[in-house]
């Protein structure tokens, strides 16, 4: 096929890895399709930007991450190109830039995870398993801490050191269900926002439980005060942030898939950075000058571009669509 053994094998590995990621993205698509009426809206979840605390910046940071990864791909191609001309110092320079770009990307992804796990507003999970969030009468999101009452309760986290020694439980949320319910009662302006997406169909327009004036097409439904009170009475758990079982943004599967797919991708970026560092050291040592070709740089370049390619698809299907 006109390529060396190593390059051919790298291409075959890329094909199999691409199909693995396609499998994951297809599973994501299937689950999202199944719960399409209840899936969280990405613009509302990913709104943080570093050093700009409290600013609502939907999508900007993930766009910057995409740009950084594309740029690191460009520096990688330039490194490969310099390798073809046997210019050792140039290869080293561009490879270093690629490594730095990769590290910035992984760091950024870790920061996004941190924000995602910490959560922002908090939510309630009802006995039926759906997530309800809170808005004020203008439709603006309200945090649990802005209205929850602090009651004199004595519930402590059951750790192995303070209870039965062979059992424990995950850490408790900041507010208990009773505190949120009491707070909701004390603030008559608050309304509940459900997981369900409002569509301008005749059926939705006739729904008496929806607060008139606050429901927009393709946004989540806001209920009337009476319907909200019924929902809050059905509360089962307070959900803050996200883990693999549940999350405050909506469907349980949303956080699960987010962690799994971006985690898998992040792992590939990280391993790519490690491999790039090894090759970078070899370039500095002059291994490829002695070998009279820089094909190794080309091979790791293929892997790096594959990682970029996967990110382009993950970015589209998670954040844009």
């Amino acid at each position, binding site marked *: 096929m006109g390529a060396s053994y190593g390059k051919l094998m790298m291409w075959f590995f890329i094909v199999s890895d691409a199909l693995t990621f396609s499998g994951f993205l297809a599973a994501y698509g*299937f689950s999202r399709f199944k719960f399409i009426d209840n899936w969280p809206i990405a613009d509302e979840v990913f709104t943080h930007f570093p050093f700009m605390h409290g600013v609502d910046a939907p999508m900007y940071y993930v766009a910057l991450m995409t740009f950084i990864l594309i740029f690191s791909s460009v520096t990688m191609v330039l490194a490969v190109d310099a390798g073809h001309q046997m210019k050792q110092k140039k290869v080293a320079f561009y490879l270093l830039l690629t490594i730095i770009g990769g590290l910035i990307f992984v760091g950024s992804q870790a920061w996004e995870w941190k924000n995602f796990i910490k959560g922002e507003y908090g939510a309630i999970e009802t006995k039926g398993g759906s997530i309800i969030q809170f808005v004020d009468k203008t439709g603006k999101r309200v945090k649990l801490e802005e209205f929850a009452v602090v009651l004199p309760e004595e519930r402590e986290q059951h750790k192995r050191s303070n209870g039965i020694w062979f059992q424990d439980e995950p850490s408790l949320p900041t507010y208990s269900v009773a505190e949120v319910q009491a707070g909701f009662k004390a603030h008559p302006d608050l309304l509940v926002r459900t997981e369900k997406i409002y569509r301008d169909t005749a059926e939705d327009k006739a729904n008496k439980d929806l607060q008139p004036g606050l429901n927009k*097409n393709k946004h989540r439904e806001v209920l009337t005060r009476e319907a909200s009170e019924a929902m809050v009475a059905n509360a089962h758990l307070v959900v803050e942030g996200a883990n693999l079982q549940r999350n405050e943004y909506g469907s349980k599967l949303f956080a699960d898939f987010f962690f799994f797919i971006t985690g898998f991708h992040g792992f590939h970026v990280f391993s790519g950075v490690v491999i790039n560092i090894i090759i970078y050291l070899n370039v500095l040592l002059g291994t490829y000058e002695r070998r009279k070709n820089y094909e190794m740089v080309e091979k790791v370049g293929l892997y790096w571009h594959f990682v970029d390619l996967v990110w382009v698809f993950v970015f589209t299907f998670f954040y844009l669509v």
Partner: protein
Amino acid sequence: MSHSHEHVSNTSRIWKVFILLSIVTIVEVALGIVRPELLFNNNFLGMNLLNWVFIILTLYKAYYIVWAFMHMEGEKSSLRWAVVATVIFLVLYLVFILLVEGNYVYGVFKNSTIKWNF
């Protein structure tokens, strides 16, 4: 593109492709933030036009990354086809299964009393 790419520097083409990819990304992000009503609220084959734009732009970027950055344009056509044909065929098949079965499962949940089982 000459076959003896050993000594010819392609730097200018690389930067051109980079500018192209950056512009496409910026357009995608801008559309994602603004979400213009005209595209968001109109459907074609069951998906809104905005999503179609995203997917087409993404495929366009993917093409350029594979063709120019992974230097597929410099490889022999047998290697090219071995990689591209396999992936595209299998991905299309997977997407077909996903859409057909997903549609069925959506129908089951919409018309029954089960709201959640996995």
